[in-house]
């Protein structure tokens, strides 16, 4: 990744430079290369002006596919746009920094201009030479690098030249995997998913998408332009994908054979790259009948719909999640499985996964969890489904990212994490997943984060835990595309220049972002954020976080941020009861606020006992004041009685004085007379 430029506002219209090697021209959009999540602009190499390049500006709200882009560096096959460089640049038209990817510009136009556009039909030879020959190496190389494309669709295919002979794949890194894939090009499991949570998938998914794309190329249009998504899914399940997509279209026998292999719903039956290459070589295989799910002798009725197989019924349970619990608990369901379907294995799995939950109703949310568990038992490879959401575990991060602006979805996701369904889903998989241990571990932690309402936890924490590369989504710093601690300090310093009347330096996003990306930050740093924002512990907690982040960022100076922190801490200083200490602290804080180092400020507040000691001393002073006031009152009473005391004492004093004077003078007189 190219080193980020830390300016936000480059001159509007002027070219921005990426990594000193590529110029990007904001005034020269190339809308024909736009992807649904990224705008395309003209880019030019500084070394080779003849390079035909395009810069894709990514949506800052979506997680950038850094892993994919890293994989695609030095990617050899020519059947896909080559990634040249990526990085964060200042983008004046939007007054923010954005992630940009510079890639090779396809030589020709987009094959299919829009979802319902028509184009010239590809014949068998065109499909072999112009489509499969360039695309198969791409899929093979991606597999070798442990990646998938997940963006294979007719609208993401480009001609490589103006003769429209060969095609190449468009990007697969401007959005989460399969995010913009129409459901018809996705295999059944992915079709069921929410588009944002389809996950990286496997080679089989790319093969299926390739099959659906070839079908579209063979007929010159979308094979199911007006299909209802749900009905299309049920058709795929009940009749097989080939029948659902291709049965109503006329294609040549060889192409039909290819499509049957590519669109097979049984992974064991779906063609591999080897089989495609054999087909391209002219070897023809006997057409296989699609393997359909076992059909029941009589349907199971749910919410007025009839279902004939377990997979379709699982779809029904997830669709009717509000009302499916009584049906699952009822005797008719088990009887249907045993008698009409004779699926003893499913009954066993159901008993194992649903267990005693089916027989009792213990509280709110049990019905939804029961429907989710039953769906897993009926259809293991299907995505995890809960309260209308359907997701693959490796797509959960993307789903959280795209759900931030949807409170209802956020709530459902929170409930999903707390329901601890991921381990059950993993246990329900008939085929072991290679990364199941990783996901099991990740999902064990999510309920703890969700259950805490404090800043630094919640759905925001899940977002950053699940998305290693997403920039900080805080409204305070989002325009700076913050990806690490140094950028965070820099962005906060910029925010601090004009922070408004009540600056809030650490919101829920920033706290969660720091908790995940700053390895030195443990839970104890987040604890003060649970206190009232007016409290001293909260403010000192903010200061501690900022000081740690600045230390980690190795940025020596953050003058505006330090100044705002110093102002924020004034009420803490005011809470010192001792006026001398308060005055000294005011001066010290003001001086530290000018150093630009938050650690200098922290040094003044590091000893939390100071405030306690001050409080105790203050109470002691109050007690002394009131004790003294009591003594003064007593003395005033004494003063009132002084005349009485003085009279008594005065008479004694007068007598003693009189006696003493008389004795003295008498002695003198005696001496005078007798000596």
């Amino acid at each position, binding site marked *: 990744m190219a080193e980020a430029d830390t300016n936000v506002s480059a001159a509007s219209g002027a070219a921005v430079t990426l990594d000193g090697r590529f110029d990007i021209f904001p005034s020269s959009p190339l809308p024909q290369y736009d992807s649904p999540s990224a705008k395309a602009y003209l880019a030019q190499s500084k070394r080779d002006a003849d390079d035909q390049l395009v810069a894709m500006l990514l949506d800052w709200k979506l997680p950038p596919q850094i892993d994919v882009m890293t994989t695609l560096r030095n990617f050899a096959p020519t059947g896909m746009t080559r990634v040249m460089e990526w990085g964060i640049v200042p983008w004046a038209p939007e007054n923010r920094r954005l992630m940009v990817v510079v890639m090779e510009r396809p030589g020709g136009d987009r094959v299919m201009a829009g979802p319902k556009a028509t184009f010239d039909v590809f014949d068998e030879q065109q499909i072999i030479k112009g489509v499969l020959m360039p695309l198969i190496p791409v899929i093979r190389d991606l597999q070798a690098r442990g990646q998938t494309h997940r963006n294979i669709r007719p609208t993401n295919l480009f001609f490589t030249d103006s003769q429209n002979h060969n095609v190449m794949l468009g990007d697969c890194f401007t959005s989460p995997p399969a995010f913009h894939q129409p459901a018809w090009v996705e295999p059944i499991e992915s079709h069921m998913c929410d588009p944002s949570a389809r996950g990286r998938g496997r080679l089989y998914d790319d093969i299926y998408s390739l099959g659906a794309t070839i079908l579209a190329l063979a007929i010159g249009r979308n094979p199911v332009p007006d299909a209802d998504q749900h009905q299309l899914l049920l058709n795929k399940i009940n009749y097989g994908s080939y029948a659902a997509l291709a049965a109503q279209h006329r294609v040549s026998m060889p192409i039909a054979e290819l499509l049957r292999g590519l669109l097979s719903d049984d992974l064991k039956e779906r063609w591999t790259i080897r089989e495609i290459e054999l087909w391209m070589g002219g070897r023809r295989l006997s057409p296989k009948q699609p393997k359909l799910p076992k059909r029941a002798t009589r349907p199971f009725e749910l919410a007025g719909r009839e279902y004939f197989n377990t997979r379709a019924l699982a779809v029904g349970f997830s669709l009717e999640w509000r009302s499916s619990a009584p049906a699952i608990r009822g005797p008719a369901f088990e009887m249907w499985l045993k008698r009409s379907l004779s699926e003893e294995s499913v009954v066993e799995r159901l008993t194992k996964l649903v267990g005693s939950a089916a027989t009792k109703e213990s509280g709110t949310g049990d019905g939804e969890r029961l429907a989710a568990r039953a769906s897993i038992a009926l259809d293991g490879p299907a995505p995890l489904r809960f309260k209308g959401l359907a997701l693959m575990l490796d797509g959960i991060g993307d789903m959280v990212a795209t759900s931030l602006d949807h409170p209802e979805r956020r709530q459902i996701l929170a409930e999903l994490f707390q329901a601890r369904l991921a381990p059950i889903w993993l246990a329900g998989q008939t085929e072991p997943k290679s990364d199941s241990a990783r996901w099991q571990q990740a999902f064990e932690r999510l309920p703890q984060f969700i259950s805490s309402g404090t800043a630094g936890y919640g759905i925001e924490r899940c977002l950053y835990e699940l998305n290693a590369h997403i920039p900080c989504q805080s409204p305070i710093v989002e325009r700076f595309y913050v990806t690490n601690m140094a950028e965070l300090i820099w962005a906060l310093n910029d925010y601090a220049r004009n922070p408004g009347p009540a600056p809030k330096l650490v919101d829920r996003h920033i706290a969660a972002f720091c908790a995940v990306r700053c390895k030195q930050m443990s839970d104890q740093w987040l604890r003060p954020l649970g206190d*009232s924002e007016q409290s001293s512990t909260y403010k000192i907690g903010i200061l501690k976080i900022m000081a740690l982040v600045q230390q980690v960022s190795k940025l020596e100076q953050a003058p505006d941020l330090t100044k705002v922190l110093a102002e924020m801490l004034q009420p803490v200083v005011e809470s010192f*009861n*001792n*006026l*001398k200490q308060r005055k000294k602290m005011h001066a010290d804080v003001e001086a530290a606020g000018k150093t630009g180092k938050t650690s200098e400020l922290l040094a003044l507040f590091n000893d939390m006992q100071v405030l306690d000691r001050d409080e105790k001393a*203050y*109470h002691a*002073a*109050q*007690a*002394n*004041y*009131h004790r*003294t*006031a009591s*003594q*003064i009152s007593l*003395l*005033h009473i*004494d*003063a009132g009685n*002084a*005349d009485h*005391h*003085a*009279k*008594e*004492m*005065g*008479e*004694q*004093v*007068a*007598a003693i*004085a*009189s*006696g003493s*004077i*008389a*004795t003295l*003078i*008498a002695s003198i*007189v*005696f001496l005078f*007379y007798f000596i």
Partner: protein
Amino acid sequence: MADFPAMPRSAQSVASKVIGGVIVVGVCVWVLPTVLVLVIGMVPTIVAFFTDRRREKYAAFCVGAMNLLGVLPVALGMWTRDHSMDSAMRNVTNVFNWFMMYGAAAIGWGLYSITPAIVAFVLRVQIERRISKMQGYQQELIDEWGEGVTESAKNAEDKQAAAAER
């Protein structure tokens, strides 16, 4: 020799009073001029004795000491020159002696009268000094801790709780 019966205790007392009285009378007769001067010169003391209602008789003591001092030179003059009734009469009729004897008594009265006021003044000054010192200490507390220190601990806690609620 026959034993005489012992005298009763009251008889002894009467006898000793009689003997004492005879001796006093004898002495008085012997120093009659001095007694005359003393009786006439010490009239203010006698008056003070009877007008002072306090048990301790501070007024009588105070006036008496000074009065005696005024009488003493007259008595000494008689003892050293002419201790006779004539001399006594001359002295008690001498205006200067009257002035000296009664003036001294008046000084005693004056002393008795003004000393309580002086003592009261001293006491008040002492109390005021102590009050002033304590108020100074309170001011030091205010200077160090602010006006809040004058509030009672309970008031302060109530204020803090109200602020926290806001």
